[in-house]
């Protein structure tokens, strides 16, 4: 056929496609989207049927009968599950604004950039053979078109330099076309309405072309279905194909079916059209039967065409992959051939456009941009408008994807059939299935599990499929396949660990899936999710419940955050103790067991929000809680910023807390000091009041008797004498009191002057006894001295010590009964050095309740006695002060009815009793 005609028609067709896309975009901009229809949606999903279907199925059917079928059986089975699986993926993607399968997987596992990048790389590497398939199909069929009946051209294609290679130009044209189609918009979450419209149109074209070819071949070239099948049954080699074959064939059959089943969901282009481009969830319901119907129709004539091809050309003369084109050409049906060629072109272009657009989005969003943003010197994060850069990256990505495909064509040449090339890709993208499908149904799956599964499966795929294909192409030694690397038989890539007898695809699939699933599940079970992962897992798995709520049924939080997440959040802002207390109070109040609760109810979430609001303000609290509770209300980056700011606020508030604690401490200390001052003030008040009272009492007597004497000049001399005596003794009492008050004041203020010299204590004590002997004699109380018979020298203040002993002795005399009273003054040398002085009496003793306050000022143990004791109530307070100043301690032992012993000790003088050389006030 005329090469110009073929090129012209092809370019014309591409222009029509472009026109449709343009129109579709225009309509979409006007708000009258052409793709808002379940039929368009189903047709766009039919992008599944590529050159592989259009040409490859016939080739496969010609060689091995109905083995081409599992590739369509799988999707048909999956279509039955569309409502459960696909609809969920659609909902998740809409709610989370997912742009690609890499985004989907990354997002599910805590927005892991690493996972997104891995998925992108697997997709890029894995899809190269698939893109190569399309390129080869187009270039091969182009060559068939222009050179038929000379079929040798295509066989030699890979031997010519690239500039003479049809496939190279096909690649370039398709790249330009894909770039024009797919990268006009920049927001990947927007729908490519034009592209989808064009894809749907292409699906119609390829279906019509194929059915047309089938009808013509069956009913025009041959005499109908019956004729064709009976001829085929009579053909010796074709008859073989009616048998399904050995047991391993069943294995392959099942494996391929399962493979196709998952691949129809996880192929990047299928994900693009079925999930990202979906405009209405309800379309899924119709697509669930429209898509299988499409698959059925397009496969209807595969066997008839294959049989017809074999019957017409036999094996070897024409590549069976090209039968569908060669048949009309052989009958000189130029128009039909052209239509079939366009159908094939449709199948290939549709696939390449969508696949590369999807790949470009992934490469751009999940691999290149994250990497670029990390390179600081590019300063990308500061640039406002990255649109142009994004566009260039995507365009570059498309070009790279297609050129890689072309490179693969060059490398593998025509060693491999179309279907085999496609299956290699299928096997690669099938690695996404566990992480993706597992991720939307199993909350427990972790990021590490997904990473492990994906990487392991991908590595096995590389080893068992991609590397051997390089070996076949001569890039690696052929012994790599036949004897394993370094001659290790167990590692033969097509018979790994001795697993033989399987189709190489099945073999790779079994191993890669085994490793992938095993690693995914095991690692997931062994590792913990972080908060982000848990949020995302909930958002994905519970998407229907959550999204229903988000869209307005309930504005209350409900059951969407785990208790642990909330607790983690809360404790970060209010401290662990408060958070725990609040949760426990909450649980107690409702009789709940928090350890049994996984998901928090709305009340608990609101409680957290309220508590957080107290720490970081209501708006931030709302954002924080909604992030834990519902996930993607704000981006992770924003959350991090908020966290940053919040942690600064927390730091400030902690400083404030510290400050306020310090203030509290200071206040407490001040309050205590103030209390003490108040107490001192009260004591001073009491002291003054008491001193006043004590002064007024003798003064009262003195005044009274003085006035009496003054008024009664003729008083009886005896009486007069008695009254004067009273006046004298009361004056003495007054003097004593004043002296003691002054003494005490000096002692307490430290103004007392001390004269420390070396004295013999025995002598001092004897002198004190002598000084009080008159008191004892008057009351007829016996004073017994129990002193050492040798001098006891000690540095002390003689007068003060005398004052203490005299005070104790006169107290003793005062409280012992006359005549029977007995007082002992005892001096004991202590083993540890120092001395002990005791004044022991046989008086009535002191009530126990009075003992603690005995040495305080104006505490007289007199209330119990009818006779008020004489004395000022200051004596013991003065004694205590003096002894303490001398470094000793004074105490009392007393039992009621068994006498009293006052005692004090004095340490060997080591400077603890200091001579005060400079008194505050001179005496």
């Amino acid at each position, binding site marked *: 056929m005329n090469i110009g005609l073929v090129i012209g028609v092809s370019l014309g067709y591409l222009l029509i496609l472009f026109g449709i896309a343009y129109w579709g975009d225009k309509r979409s901009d006007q708000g009258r989207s052409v793709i808002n229809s379940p039929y368009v949606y189903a047709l766009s999903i039919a992008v599944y049927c590529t050159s592989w279907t259009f040409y490859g199925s016939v080739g496969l059917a010609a060689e091995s009968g109905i083995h081409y079928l599992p590739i369509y059986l799988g999707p048909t089975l999956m279509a039955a599950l569309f409502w459960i699986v696909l609809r969920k993926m659609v909902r998740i993607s809409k709610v989370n604004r997912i742009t690609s399968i890499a985004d989907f997987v990354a997002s599910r596992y805590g927005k892991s950039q690493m996972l997104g990048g891995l998925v992108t790389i697997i997709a890029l590497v894995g899809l190269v053979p698939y893109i190569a398939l399309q390129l080869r199909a187009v270039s091969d069929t182009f060559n068939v078109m222009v050179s038929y009946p000379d079929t040798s051209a295509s066989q030699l294609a890979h031997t010519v330099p690239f500039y003479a290679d049809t496939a190279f130009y096909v690649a370039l044209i398709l790249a330009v076309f894909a770039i024009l189609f797919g990268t006009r918009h920049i927001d990947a979450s927007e729908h490519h309405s034009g592209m989808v419209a064009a894809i749907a149109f292409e699906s119609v074209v390829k279906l019509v072309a194929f059915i047309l070819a089938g009808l013509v071949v069956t009913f025009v070239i041959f005499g109908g279905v019956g004729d064709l099948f009976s001829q085929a049954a009579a053909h010796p080699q074709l008859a073989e194909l009616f048998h399904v074959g050995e047991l391993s064939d069943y294995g392959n059959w099942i494996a391929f079916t399962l493979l196709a089943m998952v691949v129809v969901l996880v192929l990047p282009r299928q994900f693009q059209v079925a999930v990202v481009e979906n405009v209405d969830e309800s379309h899924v319901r119709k697509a669930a039967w429209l898509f299988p119907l499409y698959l059925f129709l397009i496969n209807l004539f595969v066997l008839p065409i294959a049989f017809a091809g074999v019957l017409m050309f036999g094996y070897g003369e024409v590549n069976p992959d090209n039968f569908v084109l060669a048949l009309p050409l052989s009958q000189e049906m130029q128009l039909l051939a052209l239509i079939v060629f366009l159908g094939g072109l449709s199948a290939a272009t549709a696939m390449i456009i969508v696949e590369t657009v999807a790949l470009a989005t992934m490469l751009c969003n999940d691999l290149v941009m994250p990497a670029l943003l990390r390179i600081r010197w590019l300063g990308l994060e500061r640039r406002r408008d990255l649109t142009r850069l994004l566009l260039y990256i995507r365009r570059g990505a498309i070009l790279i994807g297609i050129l890689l495909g072309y490179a693969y064509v060059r490398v593998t040449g025509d060693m491999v059939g179309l279907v085999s090339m496609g299956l290699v890709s299928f096997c690669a993208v099938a690695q996404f299935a566990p992480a993706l499908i597992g991720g939307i149904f199993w909350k427990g799956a972790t990021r590490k599990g997904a990473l492990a599964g994906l990487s392991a499966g991908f590595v096995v795929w590389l080893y068992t499929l991609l590397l051997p294909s390089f070996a076949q192409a001569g890039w690696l030694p052929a012994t790599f396949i036949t004897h394993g690397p370094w001659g290790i038989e167990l590692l033969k890539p097509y018979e790994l660990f001795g697993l033989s007898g399987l189709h190489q695809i099945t073999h790779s699939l079994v191993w890669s899936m085994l490793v992938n699933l095993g690693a995914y599940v095991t690692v997931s079970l062994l590792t913990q999710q972080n908060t982000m992962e848990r949020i995302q897992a909930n958002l994905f798995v519970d998407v229907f419940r959550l999204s229903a709520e988000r869209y307005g049924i309930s504005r209350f939080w409900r059951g969407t955050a785990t208790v642990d997440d909330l607790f983690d959040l809360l404790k970060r802002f209010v401290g662990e103790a408060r958070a725990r207390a609040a949760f426990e109070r909450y649980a107690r109040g409702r009789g709940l067991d928090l350890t049994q609760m996984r998901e928090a109810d709305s009340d608990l979430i609101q409680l957290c929000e309220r508590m957080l609001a107290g720490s970081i303000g209501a708006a931030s609290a709302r954002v924080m809680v909604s992030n834990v509770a519902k996930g993607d209300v704000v981006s992770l980056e924003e959350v991090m910023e908020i966290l940053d700011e919040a942690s600064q606020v927390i730091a400030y508030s902690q400083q404030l807390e510290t400050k306020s604690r310090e203030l509290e401490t200071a206040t407490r200390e001040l309050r205590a000091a103030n209390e003490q001052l108040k107490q001192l003030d009260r004591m001073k008040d009491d002291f003054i009041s008491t001193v006043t009272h004590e002064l*007024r009492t003798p003064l009262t007597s003195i005044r009274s*008797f003085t006035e009496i004497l003054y008024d009664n000049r003729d008083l009886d001399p005896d009486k007069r004498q008695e009254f004067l005596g009273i006046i004298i003794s009361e004056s003495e009492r007054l003097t004593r009191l004043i002296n003691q008050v002054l003494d005490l004041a000096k002692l307490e203020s430290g103004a007392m002057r001390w004269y420390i010299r070396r004295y013999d204590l025995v002598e001092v004590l004897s002198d004190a006894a002598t000084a009080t002997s008159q008191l004892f004699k008057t009351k007829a109380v016996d004073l017994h001295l129990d002193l050492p018979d040798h001098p006891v020298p000690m540095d002390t203040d003689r007068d003060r010590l005398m004052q203490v002993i005299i005070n104790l002795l006169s107290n003793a005399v005062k409280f012992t009964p006359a005549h029977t009273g007995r007082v002992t003054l005892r001096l004991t040398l202590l083993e540890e050095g120092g001395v002990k002085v005791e004044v022991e009496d046989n008086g009535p003793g002191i009530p126990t309740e009075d003992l603690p306050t005995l040495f305080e000022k104006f505490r007289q143990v007199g209330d119990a006695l*009818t006779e008020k004791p004489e004395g000022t109530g200051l004596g013991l307070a003065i004694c205590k002060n003096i002894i303490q100043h001398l470094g000793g301690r004074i105490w009392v032992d007393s039992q009621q009815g068994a006498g009293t012993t006052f005692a004090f000790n004095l340490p060997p003088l080591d400077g603890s009793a200091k001579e005060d050389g400079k008194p505050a006030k001179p005496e």
Partner: protein
Amino acid sequence: MAPQSVLVVDDEPNIVLSLEFLMKEAGFDVRVARDGESALEAVRERPPHVILLDVMLPKRDGYDVCQTIRANPDWKNVRILMLTAKGRQIEQEKGLAMGADDYITKPFSTREVVARVRDYMPDDGA
């Protein structure tokens, strides 16, 4: 007609002595008590017309004694003069609040004490 009687209550022997002397000189019948309990005993035995009552007493203090006397309607005619050595206003007011008729601050003028007691005595011939 019973003689005009005074009960002197104080725990300072010398003050008691001086008051006893003064009251006798003034012609009153004088009894003496050294603490609150014996003061009440003396009142129970025979209520005096006037009590000179010191505040600071052993056993039961002057306020207590004053309150007890005022609680008994039989003794409502007993005049109570409080003697206080503490100069603070609050002590005096407390005494009045407890039902004392008057108070005298120590040290006192002997003439004034006698005059006050006389003021509170019911008239001789009445």
